[in-house]
């Protein structure tokens, strides 16, 4: 029997029936994430929250505030800035940090910047290695953080599907997927051996859809780039790139206006937009239910090689 004939038609016919259970499910995901935050705060000497401005970071920040309320979040936020984020992202980051009175550390790999590393001349792989992975290693070492709390979800990508909630990094922030510390029940073991640090993932069990349902339920603000709008786009290596600033404008083909939005945000030359009319949360969630594509399809950095995410993670990527 071939695969095709038995496959159910995707989309609304199969999906929204579970909606009723969603609220209880979100409650449970929220409580579990808060438990992870509190355990991290209790067990590590100097944790930090990796804040990358996207929807997952917005949810992560909201959960952190809930976890410690009415006390303040007992650790700073760290943004690894590549210098190539969308302008709307920078504006959003600075306003959120100001309004919530957060301690925000912005780290740039100055050595990489001095060398002029950028995604267009050097390619996604090198840019990511130098300006993200290397920059993150620098920042963690510079401030002596022993735990980095991030918003990665297991449903994002297949090597992420293998992550623990408390995930040990060996010397040099390296992930060894063949030798992960086992994890049982809700018992989180934050003990570290010599040279080790921890990555902590409170959103491990959340799906992309859970994130959006939670954003809607809690009224969490996200960067407007997630909603459809007419934006100046160019076709580039099979992706729709939104031109965000005038750097390297000459590298791209003709610019046209299209109604697009993003499912996942990163550096603008590496983030593929999707054509969409979803300009409200309800419309976005409906589109999400019906989607036949994975969230990271637009990300150029994942297409370099078959197992690229795993390689980057082993080297210390987020």
């Amino acid at each position, binding site marked *: 029997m071939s695969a095709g004939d038995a496959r159910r038609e995707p989309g609304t016919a199969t999906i929204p029936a579970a909606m*009723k259970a969603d609220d209880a499910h979100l409650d449970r995901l929220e409580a579990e994430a808060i438990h992870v935050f509190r355990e991290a705060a209790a067990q590590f000497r100097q944790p930090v929250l990796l804040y990358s401005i996207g929807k997952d970071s917005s949810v992560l920040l909201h959960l952190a505030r809930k976890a410690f309320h*009415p006390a303040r979040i007992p650790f700073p936020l760290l943004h690894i800035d590549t210098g190539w984020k969308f302008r709307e992202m920078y504006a959003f980051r600075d306003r959120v940090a100001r309004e919530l009175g957060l301690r925000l550390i912005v780290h740039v790999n100055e050595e990489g910047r001095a060398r002029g590393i950028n995604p267009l001349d050097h390619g996604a792989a090198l840019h990511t290695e130098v300006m993200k992975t290397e920059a993150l290693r620098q920042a963690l070492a510079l401030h002596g953080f022993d735990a980095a709390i991030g918003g990665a979800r297991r449903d994002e990508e297949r090597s992420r599907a293998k992550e623990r909630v408390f995930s040990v990094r060996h010397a040099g922030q390296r992930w060894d997927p063949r030798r992960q510390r086992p994890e049982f029940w809700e018992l989180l073991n934050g003990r570290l051996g010599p040279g080790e640090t921890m990555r902590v993932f409170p959103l491990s069990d959340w799906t992309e859809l859970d994130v959006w349902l939670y954003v809607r339920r809690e009224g969490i603000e996200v960067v407007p780039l997630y909603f459809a709008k007419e934006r100046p786009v160019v076709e580039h290596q099979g992706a729709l790139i939104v031109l965000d600033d005038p750097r390297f404008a000459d590298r791209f083909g003709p610019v046209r206006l299209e109604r697009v939005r993003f499912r996942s945000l990163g550096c603008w030359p590496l983030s593929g937009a999707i054509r969409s009319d979803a300009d409200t949360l309800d419309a976005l969630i409906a589109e999400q239910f019906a989607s036949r594509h994975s969230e990271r399809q637009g990300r150029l950095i994942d297409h370099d090689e078959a197992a690229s995410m795993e390689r980057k993670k082993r080297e210390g990527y987020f």
Partner: protein
Amino acid sequence: MSAVPASPPAPALPPLRLAIIGSVDDGKSTLLGRLLADCGLVPEDQWQALLAECRRRGLPEGEIEYAWLNDGLEAEREQGITIDVAWRYFRTARRVFIVADCPGHEQYTRNMASGLSRAELAVLLIDASRGVTRQTLRHLRIAALFGVPGVLLAVNKMDRVGFSRERFEELVAPLAALARELRIPRLEAIPIAAREGENLLRPSARLPWHGGPSLLAFLESYRVPPPAREAARLAVSLVLRAEPEFRGYAGTLAGGGIALGDEVVVLPSGQRSRVAEIRRGFAAVPRAGAGDAVVLRLADERDVGRGDVIAAARAPLAVADQFAAQLLWLDEEPLLPGRRYWLRLATLEVGAQVTEIRHRIEIESGQRLAARRLEAGEIAHLHLAADRPIPFAPFAEERPFGAFLLVDRERGATVAAGAIEYALRRATNVHWQPVALGAEARARIKGQRPRCLWFTGLPAAGKSTVADLLEQRLHALGYHTMLLDGDNLRHGLNRDLGFTPEDRVENIRRVAEVARLMCEAGLIVLVSLVSPYRADRAMARSLFRAGEFVEVFVDVPPEVAAARDPKGLYAKARAGLIPNFTGVNAPYEPPEAPEIRLPAAEEPPERLAERVLAYLLEGSPR
């Protein structure tokens, strides 16, 4: 683009946490991949990537290896095996599923167990043509140990046995009997052919004799037995302080709900109070339920810290320090009774040791076998002693307070996962009864402070020589002393012990206990013992009060010790005549922070003894 229909769907059950388990190649990854594909839940780009991979790796036209949808690590795809759990999330028209696709290799039992521990239903695959394997039984036993409330036997590859009903029944019967014996509350069985998609979404025409539901229909309608509801308990994760004068206890409620004004008791201290405030997220609320992450404030000033439990006063948890437990050993280094570990239970961490392995369970036969150590993947019943009384509940009654980990004190690694069965001795009186005449009183009459001077170092480093000289000096100064020499004790107290790792641990434990008793009697005790492992010296140290234990590292380079070799032991060991000889064919772990380090290659023993004496006199003037 269609919108979400407004009409309410059929009543949906809560999400289901599944673990797919079973032996290598029984079809776990195939089942999950095929299920996702048939439900139309594989994203288009991933589907295309899979088709491309099947072509690239030379599969016959039209054939698809669904397992590759889940094996996410490079090594897994290269070797065609699953190494670690892959977590998958999917939703059908009726239900949300959180799935742990677990590895089947014995070598990766710890990963499989990680995926299984939180499952509400374990789907245990069996290859109908190959039958029940050792791993099938191991996985079923671990499911029972971890209290998984239900098991579904998915008898796979029915195409290979002609969809035979007899074969199906012959496989299921003994497993159903074993499940009953292991007290697994519910066990069901369904025949499938995962790769062919038979009986996954819809009943299969090739299995007309199977009256039950398809696999997916079963999963969509499976009701998780609710956990026994006890009274409310909150394991304190964190104490939160905020202006003005806010002091709240953060944690996740278990067991039952709590309301304002409820009377509570703090464990293990036993202090009582009432709930003055309940916060959930940003709001103060009048009540909260099991599973909620909350912050509680109490009506009275109480000394509450991380690891304490706030429990409903009408039904508090018991408190004890010695337990009978069952556990799964995970580490490459064996479990040795007497070694010290961290015990993690709820939000608490205390020092603990396994005092006795009662027996280990043979995986296939279930036989109880005597054991002096445990290897990775073995299950055993044993006795556990915590350093102090802790609040707990039997695992079978309240999982959150009966589930525990053992953690290696050097590496921080999680080395065991277990379940408390019952307390061996309840700490009925939580506060220790002070003995009228204490160690201090006994020492005072001798005009000294009791100490344990623990000389550690390579064989022939000079431990006994220095200890001997020091004792003579102390004696001359009028101190009451006792010298315990490792070699001499082996002729009497420890003559039943050899030099295996287990015996070394026991040797050290006995010497340390004797030294502790002598300290209680007020003596200055000098112990001369190679004691090569840090964990064992830490165990010895933990028996003493702060400041009482003085680790003296007699430090010589191995070449120097070997050259001295007064008893000719190094020579013999190198000739292979002495197995496990420290410094030759067994390791020595030097202390990281000894109270005193003696440079024994550079200075004569008299100088070294003076150094220790100076240290003692500095701290304890007469």
